[in-house]
């Protein structure tokens, strides 16, 4: 490292703010960051001006962590600007890496989203059918708002991304480990997924697979059945795997790194850490893994009937990754 302090930036696109809150969760460590780095862009904590960023020389920021997907024209323009001003751009969190929860909107058309939000919602009173317009002439002058795109995109759909750091949100522990790697100048090769483990969520899970002879006869929903939480001596004193108990869980197709937090609250994994290493399509991998456990008894029809008990397979297997999936959006 040179003697010059690092210049770090954090920015949000179409996200919920949870990534920023999670970054703040590094708590006291934030003071250590400030010792070795200048934060030159972090709207919720540090003052900065648009003109400043525009006037930064290209590549001024050593590293910028970007959270949130691309939902409208303005976010895309800002992503392009920040790409130019950053030496290293990290897609931070599930939304920028895979589209995240907002990308579930890709299962619907822009028109139907507007129709619901502004016309048919039961509390909306809009007899004239007014919809937001990118440009509106008011008596005092013209007002503008950005164009809402037909789909939610990943950050790397609009600019070149150097690293991907999944999670909804990434854990504070992983964030701190990545910041330390940045500060030490020890980032892996471009294109790597950072702040994760090498295995799957199952590897960190407080439940244990029995594996042998396990077949699913009925799929269960988390609120309609109680999971068996009794520790089993034959399972290293852990309760049996929730998927083996019939609760749909995508942990086996999902990257480790989160410490299986949801499972610690007895809830199955929904895949926010993205596809496991070497898995291209998280949803099809999860579907295949779950499908292989179905107790077909050699009868295809029986297998199909049991599989049909899985409610909302697309919204479950691709909960955080519609933009990242092979389908990208529903063909409508």
């Amino acid at each position: 490292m040179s003697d010059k302090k690092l210049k770090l930036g954090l920015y949000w696109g179409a996200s919920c703010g949870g990534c920023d809150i999670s970054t703040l969760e590094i708590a006291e460590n934030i003071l250590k960051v400030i010792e070795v780095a200048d934060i030159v862009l972090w709207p919720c904590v540090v003052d900065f001006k648009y003109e400043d960023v525009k006037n930064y020389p290209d590549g001024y920021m050593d590293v910028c962590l970007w959270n949130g997907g691309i939902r409208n024209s303005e976010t895309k323009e800002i992503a392009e600007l920040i790409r130019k001003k950053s030496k290293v751009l990290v897609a931070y969190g599930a939304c920028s890496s895979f589209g995240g929860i907002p990308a579930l909107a890709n299962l619907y058309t822009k028109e139907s989203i507007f129709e619901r939000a502004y016309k048919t919602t039961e509390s909306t009173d809009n007899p004239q059918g007014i919809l937001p317009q990118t440009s509106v002439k008011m008596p005092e002058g013209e007002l503008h708002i950005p164009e809402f795109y037909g789909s939610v995109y990943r950050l790397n759909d609009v600019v070149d991304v150097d690293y991907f750091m999944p999670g909804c949100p990434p854990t504070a522990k992983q964030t701190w480990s990545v910041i330390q790697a940045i500060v030490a100048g020890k980032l892996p090769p471009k294109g790597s997924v950072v702040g994760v483990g090498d295995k799957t969520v199952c590897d960190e899970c407080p439940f244990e697979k029995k594996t042998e002879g396990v077949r699913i006869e009925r799929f269960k929903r988390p609120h309609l059945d109680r999971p068996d939480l009794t520790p089993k001596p034959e399972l290293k004193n852990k309760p049996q795997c929730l998927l083996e108990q019939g609760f749909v869980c995508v942990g086996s197709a999902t990257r480790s790194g989160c410490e299986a937090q949801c499972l610690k609250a007895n809830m199955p994994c929904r895949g926010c850490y993205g596809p496991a290493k070497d898995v291209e399509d998280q949803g099809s991998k999860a579907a295949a893994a779950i499908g292989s456990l179905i107790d077909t008894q050699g009868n295809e029809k029986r297998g199909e009937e049991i599989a049909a008990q899985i409610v909302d397979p697309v919204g479950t297997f691709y909960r955080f990754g519609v933009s990242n999936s092979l389908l990208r959006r529903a063909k409508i």
Partner: protein
Amino acid sequence: MKRISIDPVTRLEGHGKIEIFLDDKGDVANAYFQVPELRGFEKFAEGRPVEELPRITSRICGVCPEAHMMAAAKACDAVYGIELPSTAKKLRELQYSAFFLGDHTTHFYALGGPDFVCGPDAPKAERNIVGVIKKVGVEVGGKVIKTRRECHEVAQILGGKPVTPVNAIPGGMSKGLNKEERDRIEKIARDGVEFGKFTLKVFEDIVLKNKAYVDLILSDPYTFPTYYMGLVDANNKVNFYDGKVRVVGPDGKEHCKYQPHEYREFVAEHVEPWTYLKFPYLKKIGWKGFTGGLESGVYQATPLSRLNAADGMATPLAQAEYEKMYKTLGGKPVKHNLAMHWARVIELTYAAERLLQLVTDPEITGPDYRALPTKIPTEGVGIVEAPRGTLTHHYWTDENGIVTKANLIVGTTNNHAPICMSIKKAAQGVIKAGKPVTDALLNMVEMSFRSYDPCYGCATHSLPGEMPLEVTVYDKDRNVLHKLTR
């Protein structure tokens, strides 16, 4: 006509923009607050299993995910017609109290408080959390970080994840509380109550003992009569998690008091073409445009409006401070928006006291932390108070519990019209014909806006916080006369 653009999070952010138009004399003709984002949760909730909505809608806002999780879970309870076991209900309120304590701490010390603690005209570089720490001492920064961290710890103990917990399900919670965890949370709650007392003292010493600040709170640009909304318990005391929604008028009289499932009789939403965010209003009065007072359906749903809509607080320290606030500010309802910070500190203290009450309740470690649904799911409404206003989730499902429709009225959205109007009023108070527009404009206008703690994570998606402003003053021919940034 002159035009002033205040791009709060700047063009760069694009999550909120203020446009102020001057008339030919140079007085404020009109002001628009525009929200440029939409994500469409109401649409893509369709087709999802209803029990997943607490985990999906918590991603509406990473600042108040618990609010959406709890409103969603309550809507799910209603969809299935489940009565929650007592332990389940108490666990939910316990977790929610810890969340409120942490959230109000963040706002008071890091976001809204600096204006008062450091002073509205303090140099920009000091008007932030660092300036607060300088003024009140380094150990305070430690206390704030500790309180925030411990509130997230409660979320993690119960809900697995500190930021977006996953444990609220139809019928209760996915996990109970064991004795060891209970003991830890009791410690956190006791420290929280002490932190509440400390914060009341900070507010007393720095704000109330300074006549200039009290005068500012009482000043005209920040006085804004509307209807006031908030959730109340059976005794009309403020409650964040459960109860009926009560609305009082600027005259202090009760306008209505409704059960969650009745919300559509009392609230409707207006659409304007120049913003992606809708404008809720009181249906029985009607949408009369951007105007306040008794004749307009515009209402506020904020910490102050919750206190105005209630008859008091259910815990002793908070109740004492509640009485003091109304005594100091001239009775109910308080119409001074900057008193929102005082109301928030009172609520912070209540949250800590309530957390302690619940964690020391013998039922809290009980085994009945969930009930299984027995009825066919149909339709249900769940309402909680988010820190930034009354939050309503309404779901319809098929007989298999798959969502067919969803309707959401979220915290900050309630306040969209009042925010627009407050900005206009503050701007009118500062910008006068013939007087140059100065940096004071920025903070005066921003203070009126910031008192709402607007969370466009909820309404759109950006964080509340210290927003860089960009103000451009144009003449009639759109030549730039002044350009101010900070």
